């Protein structure tokens, strides 16, 4: 017997509202359907009525965790429209904050994964260590969550020598802690056993469903915008794209821990080779008419902003494709043939940021791929045909 179980829009397993509809047989999920649109805020429309400098702070508020990702993507695009290039030191500081944000986001995710897997002490220790990153970010930018470090043409704040050495010291502490968690993964069999084999996504599926970020990389698809289409300073920074070949939640955990270690390398490179000079150039108020697509590797995957300028001080159109939206199709594939009890873990493994992805509402039939409208008369005819076919139900007795 197949049963449909709705999970969400409000559910203890979900941090943000999203509707999941599972068709299950016993404990096994046969089909899954996602309903979006519970958190639509109209950010893109608001952006059309604000100047570029105001939009920088608006795009930052698309997401609470990868706030810097969105504002950097927007700033990168706007800088091309304004025909200015940020100075080298400004770029180094901008991508230093990017990597700090990646570390903080991945450590947050590791904690959540530990919590969803029932390893709460892991969750508490990881989040304690994450405070170090938050303190660095607060020291650099003046705030813990919305750093507001970007401006069009560079960054707003410089760091001094004392801060630079302090960050390097704190990075050493973080590196030691992260190596401990990396080893923990290999020595704690219950944790590994809980994560292995859950939420399988084959390499072919990851490619065909256009998975992005660590979700794709855990299925052995080396897809990383920093390497494929280097923006900013990433063509001169040595780093590796981390992949895993287990294609499950364990692989996603390993990819994230490895990426955090890579981020420490990148940050140390940036801090040790920090060039002298100004951090920003002055930007004009109006760009030339034109359009631009800006890509950025956010902690969750590829983030895309499309900006169209009409020569005024406000963009004519801003389109945002947040990485979570790119991973929804892959999530459905992961949920199929899984167990109900694994839904929170599988869903958490894509590191969903639902309010980022809420751009437009689309209702898609999970089987045919297109929405369908059925007339009342047609439904009645279908019911009649079904009753005629199903002979068993005809001699069911009224129970009362």
């Amino acid at each position: 017997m197949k049963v449909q179980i709705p999970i969400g829009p409000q559910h203890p397993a979900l941090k943000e509202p999203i509707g999941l509809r599972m068709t299950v047989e016993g404990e096994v999920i046969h089909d899954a359907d996602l309903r979006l649109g519970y958190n639509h805020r109209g950010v893109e429309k608001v952006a059309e009525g604000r100047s570029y400098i105001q939009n920088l702070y608006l795009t930052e508020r698309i997401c609470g965790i990868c706030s810097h990702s969105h504002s950097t993507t927007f700033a990168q695009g706007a800088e091309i429209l304004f025909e200015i290039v940020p100075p080298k030191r400004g770029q180094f500081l901008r991508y230093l904050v990017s990597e700090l944000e990646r570390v903080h986001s991945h450590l947050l995710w590791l904690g959540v994964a530990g919590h969803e897997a029932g390893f709460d002490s892991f969750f508490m220790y990881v989040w304690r260590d994450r405070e170090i990153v938050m303190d660095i970010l607060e020291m650099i930018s003046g705030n813990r969550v919305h750093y507001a470090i970007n401006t069009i043409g560079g960054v707003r704040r410089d760091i001094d020598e004392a801060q630079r050495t302090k960050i390097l010291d704190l990075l050493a502490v973080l590196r030691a802690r992260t190596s401990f968690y990396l080893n923990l993964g290999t020595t704690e069999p219950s944790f590994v056993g809980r994560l292995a084999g859950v939420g399988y996504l084959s390499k072919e599926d990851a490619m065909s469903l256009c998975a992005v970020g660590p979700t794709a990389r855990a299925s052995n698809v080396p897809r990383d915008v920093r390497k494929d289409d280097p923006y900013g300073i990433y063509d001169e920074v040595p780093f590796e794209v981390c992949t895993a070949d287990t294609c499950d939640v364990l692989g996603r955990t390993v990819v994230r821990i490895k990426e955090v270690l890579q981020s420490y390398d990148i940050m140390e490179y940036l801090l040790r080779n920090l060039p002298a000079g100004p951090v920003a150039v002055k930007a004009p108020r109006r760009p030339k008419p034109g359009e631009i697509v800006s890509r950025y590797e956010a902690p969750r995957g590829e983030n895309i902003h499309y900006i169209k300028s009409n020569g005024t001080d406000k963009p004519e159109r801003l389109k945002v494709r947040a990485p979570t939206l790119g991973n929804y199709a892959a999530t459905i594939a992961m949920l199929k043939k899984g167990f109900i009890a694994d839904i929170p873990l599988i869903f958490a493994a894509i590191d969903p940021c639902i309010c980022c992805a809420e751009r437009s509402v689309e209702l898609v039939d999970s089987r045919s791929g297109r929405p369908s409208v059925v007339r009342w008369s047609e439904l009645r005819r279908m019911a009649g045909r079904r009753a005629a076919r199903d002979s068993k139900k005809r001699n069911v007795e009224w129970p009362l």
Partner: protein
Amino acid sequence: MRIGAFIPELLRHLFKKPATVDYPFKKLSPPEGFRGTPYLHPETCIVCRACERDCPAEAIEIVELSAAEKRFRLTIHNDRCIHCAQCVDSCPTDAMRMDDKYEIAAFSRWDLKAAWEYVRAVVKPKAPAPAPAAPAPSANPPSDNG
């Protein structure tokens, strides 16, 4: 593989002090450069309206009270403020500043509004500088003479 690899770590932390502080009784000081609440230094404000124009949350409002006296009222709607400090960056005369207060909750959004009434300053401005500066020397010598 061994069972309970995390237990030594947990036991070690039994004898360490907590990572958190007793917040309402003990407070952590915010770092230098913390973006708290914006406030105006009215002596240096030249009413160029750069802050009003650039504020992403439209939290700054400048109203002209008297055109003859050049009196203005600047209101910061802290209930709308997103603490980005763009007004501080946009201000050409360093009249907008940030404090380091972080406990800024209030019972009513009207309690969060901060307003300053002041006369427009003439601190090394571009265009209106010669006009008020020129009468001043001419006004002073007669008083000296008289």
